[in-house]
């Protein structure tokens, strides 16, 4: 238990100390929000779908959680290269606990990051329909963060160097983002695209955030919660398995 806490605390401390990085990591979602938000706004409005900023804000929050949690999960790669990973692998603590501590740390960081982006969204004019559902939205953010932090740890356990990371970025993380419906509604899509969006866990995450923040949902919040919960369990199990098999 104390090992989980120690590993969690380490991740959070490292994050809070990298102030420059925190600000820098807000730049990308802000650009999506402002440029796409205001750029596509008129077309969206004309199509009778209402305000695009309102629509895209939960998507941008979901995106920042995805990137942040995968990145810090893959931070394992740096620990491997700089050697600290060895120190934790020989410690007399079940590797499961080390993995869970790291993953919860990554998830916490991603949640803070998501909350910061949500604040930026509100500065840009986004308004949640009801504040009452806000705590539930936060819970969903934590759930999304756990899903992808676990996935990040699983990936980080298998990768050996930065080249591998580029491949993961281009062929896994970007598709997860683009197929999630963060930027467009999931209705009336061509069949192949529709199938792919249904297979993307982030689709359910962003849909869940929309259900709580703007009362719009494609799958329904109950299904969202079920799919995200199942993914979290599956990825945590996978991550634990791969992490405990690491050899150096």
């Amino acid at each position: 238990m104390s090992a989980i806490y120690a590993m969690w605390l380490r991740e959070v401390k490292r994050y809070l100390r990298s102030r420059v990085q925190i600000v820098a990591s807000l730049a990308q979602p802000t650009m999506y929000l402002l440029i796409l938000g205001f750029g596509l706004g008129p077309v969206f409005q004309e199509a009778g779908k209402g305000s695009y900023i309102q629509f895209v804000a939960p998507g941008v929050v979901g995106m920042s959680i995805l990137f942040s949690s995968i990145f810090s999960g893959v931070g394992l790669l740096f620990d491997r290269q700089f050697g600290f990973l060895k120190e934790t692998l020989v410690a007399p603590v079940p590797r499961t606990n080390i993995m869970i501590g790291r993953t919860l740390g990554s998830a916490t960081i991603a949640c803070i990051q998501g909350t910061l982006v949500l604040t930026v969204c509100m500065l840009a004019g986004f308004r949640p329909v009801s504040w009452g559902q806000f705590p539930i939205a936060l819970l969903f953010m934590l759930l999304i963060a756990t899903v992808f932090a676990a996935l990040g740890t699983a990936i980080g356990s298998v990768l050996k160097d930065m080249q591998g990371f580029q491949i993961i970025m281009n062929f896994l993380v970007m598709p997860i983002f683009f197929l999630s419906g963060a930027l467009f509604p999931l209705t009336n899509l061509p069949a192949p695209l529709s199938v792919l969006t249904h297979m993307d866990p982030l689709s359910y995450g962003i849909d869940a955030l929309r259900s709580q923040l703007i009362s719009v949902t494609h799958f329904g919040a109950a299904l969202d919660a079920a799919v995200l919960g199942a993914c979290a369990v599956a990825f945590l199990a996978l991550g634990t398995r791969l992490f405990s098999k690491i050899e150096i």
Partner: protein
Amino acid sequence: MIQVNDLVKSFSDFRAVDQISFSVQPGEIFAFLGPNGAGKTTTIKMLTTLLKPTSGTLAIDGLDIARHPNEVRKRFGIVFQDPSLDNELTALENMEIHGVLYGVPARVRTERTEKLLKLFELWDRRDSFVKTFSGGMKRRLEIARGFLHTPKILFLDEPTLGLDPQSRNQLWSHVKHVNETEGVTVFLTTHYMDEAEKVAQRIAIIDHGKIVAQGTTAELKEQTKTDSLEGAFLALTGTTIRDESANPGADQMRQFSQMWRR
């Protein structure tokens, strides 16, 4: 305390460790010597659960490493050859996290951390980030951290690499101290024959993944008809320099094979 039988570790077609067997008695200081790339670090990695052997058995304190990795990890401490500190944390935080992971009670942790950081002259810099430390300071911190808990077995993989004579002296007197007062078994590797001769009760010499000789310093000298451990070492392993880039060591081979396995 350590029992190794017919241990083999292969990386693709390279045999880093080739059928070695040895044992270390409780309370003994055992030195594992060999030229670069001989298989020393690979053996330590297998003993410390970081690497799975290709074949052969390893037991620590009577426990099979493959079957009880968690129990085995409770019994040893290690100072690695290469860095294993968290550069983004302070010296104190590195000690702290180690203490928590090894289950050292908070009060003992604080006391020992202060004592060890003072011993290795890092106390004044305890709140500095490790990334601001010089190579020697990082090395000293790794060693101080290794002594924070009292294991049954202490693995020291080339601990004196890059240390000044003062720190070296501190290190060996501390190693002898824990060995004598707390009965800690010590398994060490080094390139400095005088250190091995001074502290180790028994020595094994490994070359090209095989153990070529083992015994006390006196026995090794007698066996090779030389008058120093250095002479015995050279007689057993030859005088050719192992240029690691021309004749890649086990670690480099491993990294290489891992890169291409994907």
